[in-house]
């Protein structure tokens, strides 16, 4: 017995085929209008995972490029100010040479002293310059200008409390600071309670690393923060995470600190971009010579008609210039590094874009051809479907 073709069967098969061709037609149309091969996550699951990874990298690269731009502004502002500083130090040195020679006398020296004062004022304003709202040479201190106008003795600020502290009692400090650089000392309550029960930890690096936890109740007695600073508390109840801190300064003009400011420039890689006031203008920390001190002694020597003092100032000015130049060189090499990083990032960005495109984007030429093919197939199917009723045995039976 041969296969029976029934009318129902015929209609059904034509409809199925029509649906099939229309679906293919629609798929190609979707790809053409979106210009992408992947329009749903189920179109190419592996491709989607890859593309998401590339896009994440691409976003990260954008951010690193922004970071590098910011750093470049900072570095060029810093370098500019330091160049100005070298210039006025050159002036000061010339002045020293002139006033140390035999042609100078008490009067010229008095006039020169005024000039040195002007130089000192300009140096102060340079050292306190800002980029936007941030001091260029203060390390991480932002609440105080990095350089004072008068030389200060070693000093301990009044203790400050965290804004949300529970404790409302009195906090006092005493002692003389014996540390080598400007630092912030922090006391953090770890277990709350009254004075008899509370426990605390101490940090001598501004709150990054902590010593061992104290015994309960030790806070009842004056607490030794280290380097000669003692802090004491009045009556009150402490809560965990209450913070008290004390800023301590060495003798000198510098009020800022030594902190390095960093920025991320690539995965797992950061760059330190700031020059601290300490390393540029003082003899503490990384510096060798206190620029303000030597300018002051120079001025004093001029006013006091002290030729030896003036001669000594010549060397001092030279050393100061060297120190500042060293910092300028640092800025220069950091800027070079930023340039390299920038060009690496650009290259990486290009390859990400092309990887994304290779996976995601549709080949328009190929699609257009496929589209015409499907269109022809669809029309043929419609043509065939329209003929189905015209052939029937009924037409031939009389």
């Amino acid at each position, binding site marked *: 017995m041969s296969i029976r073709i*029934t009318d129902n069967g015929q209609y059904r098969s034509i409809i199925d085929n029509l649906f099939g061709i229309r679906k293919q037609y629609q798929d190609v149309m979707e790809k053409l209008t979106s210009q992408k091969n992947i329009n*749903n996550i189920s179109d190419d699951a592996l491709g*989607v995972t890859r593309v998401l990874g590339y896009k*994440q990298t691409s976003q990260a690269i954008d951010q690193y490029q922004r970071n590098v731009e*910011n750093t470049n502004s900072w570095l060029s502002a810093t370098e500019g100010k330091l160049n100005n500083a070298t210039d006025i130090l050159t002036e000061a040195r010339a002045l020293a040479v002139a006033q140390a020679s035999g042609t100078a006398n008490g009067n010229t020296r008095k006039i020169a002293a005024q000039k040195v004062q002007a130089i000192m004022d300009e140096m102060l304003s340079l050292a306190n310059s800002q980029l936007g709202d941030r001091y260029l040479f203060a*390390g991480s201190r932002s609440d105080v200008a990095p350089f004072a106008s008068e030389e200060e003795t070693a000093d301990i600020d009044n203790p400050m409390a*965290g804004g949300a502290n529970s404790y409302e009692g009195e906090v006092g400090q005493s002692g003389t600071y014996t540390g080598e650089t400007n630092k912030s000392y922090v006391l953090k309550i770890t277990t709350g309670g009254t004075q008899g029960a509370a426990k605390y930890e101490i940090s001598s690096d501004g709150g990054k690393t902590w010593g061992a936890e104290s015994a309960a109740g030790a806070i009842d007695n004056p607490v030794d923060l280290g380097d000669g600073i003692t802090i004491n508390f009045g009556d009150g109840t402490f809560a965990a995470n209450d*913070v008290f801190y004390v800023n301590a300064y060495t003798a000198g003009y510098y009020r800022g600190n030594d902190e390095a400011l960093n920025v*991320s420039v690539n995965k797992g890689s950061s760059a330190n971009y700031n020059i601290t006031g300490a390393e540029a203008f003082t003899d503490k920390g990384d510096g060798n010579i206190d620029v303000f001190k030597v300018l002051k002694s120079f001025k004093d020597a001029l006013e006091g008609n002290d030729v030896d003092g003036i001669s000594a100032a010549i060397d001092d000015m030279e050393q100061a210039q060297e120190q500042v130049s060293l910092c300028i060189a640092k800025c220069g090499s950091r800027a070079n590094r930023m340039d390299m990083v920038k060009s690496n990032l650009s290259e990486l960005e290009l390859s990400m874009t092309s990887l994304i495109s290779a996976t995601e984007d549709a080949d328009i030429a190929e699609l257009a051809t496929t589209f015409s093919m499907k269109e022809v197939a669809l029309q043929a199917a419609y043509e065939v479907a329209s003929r189905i009723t015209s052939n029937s045995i009924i037409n031939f039976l009389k």
Partner: protein
Amino acid sequence: MSLSGLLQVSRNALASYQTAIDVTGGNIANVSTPGYSRQRPVLRTTGDVQGGATNAQMSVEVSKVERIFDNYLEVQIVDQQQKAGYSETESSLLGRIELIFNETKGAGLNDVMGRFWGSWDDLANNPEGQVERGALVSASEELATRFNTIASDLEDAQQDAKLSIKDTILEINKLTSSIADLNKSIVERGNMSGESNRLLDERSESLKSLSELIDLNYVVDGNGSLSVFLPDGSQIIGAAAALELNYKSDHVVFKQSPNESMDQILSQGNKGKLAALLNVRDDDIPSYLDKLDDLAKGIITQVNELHQDGYDGYQNTGNDFFAPAESDNIAKNMAVMDEIIKDVNRIAASTVVSSGNGETAREISALKDQLFMNSDTATFGSYYGSMVGEIGRDIADAKSNAEHQDTILTQLISHRDSMSGVSVDEEMMNILKYQMGYNAAGRLCQTVNEMLETLMNIGR
């Protein structure tokens, strides 16, 4: 041979061919009725010729009207219908979920996460900047909201599945009770021709509709009644009655034992719409939600850990950035701490009490490159990428499965059509055939009439 006998023969022939044409007419009328099995009149000779002097007439009768129907094909179709029903439902449900994770248009969670990490870095570049702090809070709120939305969209999809389950159960109950009624009628009428064929067709169609919905096995009893069993052997349709299903406390149960959940039994075999709904509701969606929760928990925990060690604009420390993750519904409830939203200076960007330092912010941004997920082998980003890829694969698999099952079903149905369907060509030919027989019988009748007349006129 008696003339009256011959008359009888032609009378029978006329009646038989008329019946045959009736049956053929029935077929033609039902050419496009779904589920109709064509009927064939079975003509049989009656009476026989005995050798010798006595002869009995040979006549024709329609002994029965046969329903052309292949049982084995039917079994295959019912089975395939269950598989097709399952994969189609699965594919359509998962297709909804595909819309939730629309990463191909570029505005998905991937993008939002990238902006979140980026704004921490912007803050690190200017730790006290109010603009940067505000932007960070914005980006963080967007991240939290996006997690909330995805989680609640997934839950909505689950809710939809629940509603569909309820609807499906109503449909199943309707079908089972109608099949039980048909059983009764069929058994009552016995296996007579005509009437029963219609009922049999109807029952067969109902069975196919039922098989699309639920995993079942069936058997036709000796007396014609159809018994339907669930995969664990419990009988859902018997000779006269059907057991009703109910939906109680999120489980599918039999009405008479409302505390015994049938979920496991019904969904194990991966057949039928109900099984697909149960599987997507109980396996697929919860696993996607779990992964989402894991990602949210990872981000919240790691950001909070670093944030607690940092100092904000008021030199406070020990505070969270995100509301701490609880044990469940993590993604749904993810939120930035209220205090931070109200006052952006409470963001701890610095690792020391001096607020010019932005190390904490920088370190938080660098979290995106660290391996916290999948037992410390994947970053947040790559975890999300794999998760989306997995979901995409599930959906692609479901779609191709649905197509595959549908193709097989279509083939089987076309076989069935070929066997039991009506071909107008064939029926037209049959009409010609029977009509010729009718005409011949009529002619015979006329001939016998003339013969009788001749006989009558002999004596004149």
